[in-house]
């Protein structure tokens, strides 16, 4: 698919991949750029420099070894729990929506929402840190009252694409949802 240049709310480039498996099954994948080697270097160097400064004054070698440990563990935790490589949304008409995000370490988390529970998919506004952003979310039905919304599942939570990307996903989702 011919993509326009999509970015996230911080201005970093994103790619949106829309795959149409059939007329009522579509998959959207938002991929963020990989961890840049420069960023890793900066973080590692700053931790090590601080550790070396502390070592210089205390003459305690435990500081240096703990610094190595901290960088290693930190990096592992970061790629395992924080850094999301791509998030995908699989919409299958009459069946449901599958939301999955895969982390840089290869770990994947997946959640499935049945169509009977879904009320709609909408674009909403929220205040996030010191910005006001748009986000895409799934509205879940309240089991006791079919017209009420019981809760909201935000989509693309870690990549946070901008409005033009969200509108594209929203429109094709609505095409499928309106059919069933």
């Amino acid at each position, binding site marked *: 698919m011919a993509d326009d240049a999509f970015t996230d709310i911080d201005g970093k480039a994103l790619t949106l991949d829309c795959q149409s498996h059939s007329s009522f099954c579509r998959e959207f994948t938002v991929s963020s750029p990989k961890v840049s080697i420069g960023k890793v270097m900066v973080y590692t160097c700053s931790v090590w420099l601080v550790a070396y400064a502390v070592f210089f004054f205390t003459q305690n070698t435990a500081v240096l070894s703990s610094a190595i440990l901290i960088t290693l563990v930190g990096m592992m935790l970061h790629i395992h729990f924080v850094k999301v490589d791509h998030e995908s949304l699989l919409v299958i008409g009459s069946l449901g929506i599958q939301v999955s995000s895969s982390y840089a370490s290869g770990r994947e988390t997946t959640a499935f929402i049945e169509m009977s529970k879904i009320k709609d998919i*909408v674009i909403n506004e929220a205040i996030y840190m*010191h910005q006001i952003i748009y986000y895409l979310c799934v509205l879940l039905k309240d089991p006791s009252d079919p017209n009420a919304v019981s809760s909201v599942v935000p989509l693309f939570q870690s990549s946070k694409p901008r409005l033009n990307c969200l509108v594209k996903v929203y429109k094709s989702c609505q095409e499928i949802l309106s059919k069933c």
Partner: protein
Amino acid sequence: MGQRKKVAAMNNLSSQKVSGGPADAVRVSSRRHNICMVSDFFYPNMGGVESHIYQLSQCLIEKGHKVVIATHAYGRRKGVRYLTKGLKVYYLPLQVMYNQSTATTCFHSLPLLRCVFVRERITVVHAHSSFSAMAHDALFHAKTMGLNTVFTDHSLFGFADVSSVLTNKLLTVSLCDTNHIVCVSYTSKENTVLRAALNPEIVSVIPNAVDPTDFTPDPSHRHDDRITIVVISRLVYRKGIDLLGGIIPELCLKHPDLHFLIGGEGPKRIVLEEVREKYQLHDRVRLLGALEHKNVRGVLVQGHIFLNTSLTEAFCMAIVEGASCGLQVVSTRVGGIPEVLPEDLITLCEPNVRSLCAGLETVIARQRSGSVPSPFSIHARVQNLYTWRNVAERTEKVYDRVAGEEVLPLDRRLRRLRSHCGPVAGSIFAFVAVLDFLFLLLLQWLVPDRGMDIAVDTTGPQGQWRQETSKHGAHSKCAMKREAETKTL
């Protein structure tokens, strides 16, 4: 009465100005503004400023302008909400300090307010109420960002005590480079011009309004065997509740068929309770406690006379509401009250017990002899005096004027601050203005303007709201969107 004539003259003048050239009028009216109303006070908080902002915004939307409101978060109500006709309200998570007013550090509100101004493409920032720190912050930031500003003052201040000296200084600084100021009465204008050392030419008077359809008379709710005096105000010192405490026993002693109906809540309730206890007036003085706005009419129509004992008042909405319900109005002659109603609809007294009692006595005598005009004739006269559409039209003219003005660049702004606000305060705030400007540059570097999504217009020329509500399916989507916000945010 000179003041009333002045009002009439002003009205004529402004209407002449518009009707002066048809081409000119068309050009002016076709101009659309993107307005952001900023105040700490908005619904769910109740009060005069809140309803003023809401009603004015609704009428401006009707005229085709785009209006958004920015206020601070109330409890769990934060984020973005939509009200009737697509009026968008930003409840920004800013820390509340005192009396629903946010803390002001001059800086911390800049990122969020900038975000609102940029994404909504605001052209005019309209701040309300001098008690609201957020309004002053917004004026300051808007100037830094190069936007035109309007400020509406809703209250009167003194000059003598320390707190008013300080607030007046702050107001001087804050209004120093505001393009236009709106006051609700001529008294309030005089007060603001003196307090903030302003050029009177940039201060307009636009009174408040009431919704006349909400306040219709209904004499069938009155008891004919008694005369009822209605008082509806917050029970605080400023509203002259101590005077009321003096009036009640004196009049009740003279007139055995006199009843008092008092709506409102506040720290001075204890004064009225003491009076009631002391003179055994439990059956004749009823304290209703806090009233919701929608219940006010139900109380007003039960009375014959409306009493207002305020000690200071910029523009008294309550007496217009009272008169609109067809009551005889008795009020103190303070602040802007003499300007509000025509002389024959109101009895003005000095703010002391004796004068108020004398005024009430004459009205009671008139009521007994039946020589008062009927409630419906009073309502018919009042209903066209103050309407929100008129307020919106006049505010629109202010926006038109402001939109054409240039915004002072930073160096001239600093010079103006220093020459206008005195060497010490001026220099301090010039320094703050420079910091604010640097902070803005930092934010523009961190989150550039083009990195922010432009918000979808709900109101204004390209407003989506009306088109969507006309289609049924889309309508339910809007409703759902609102529901979703209620749940999450």
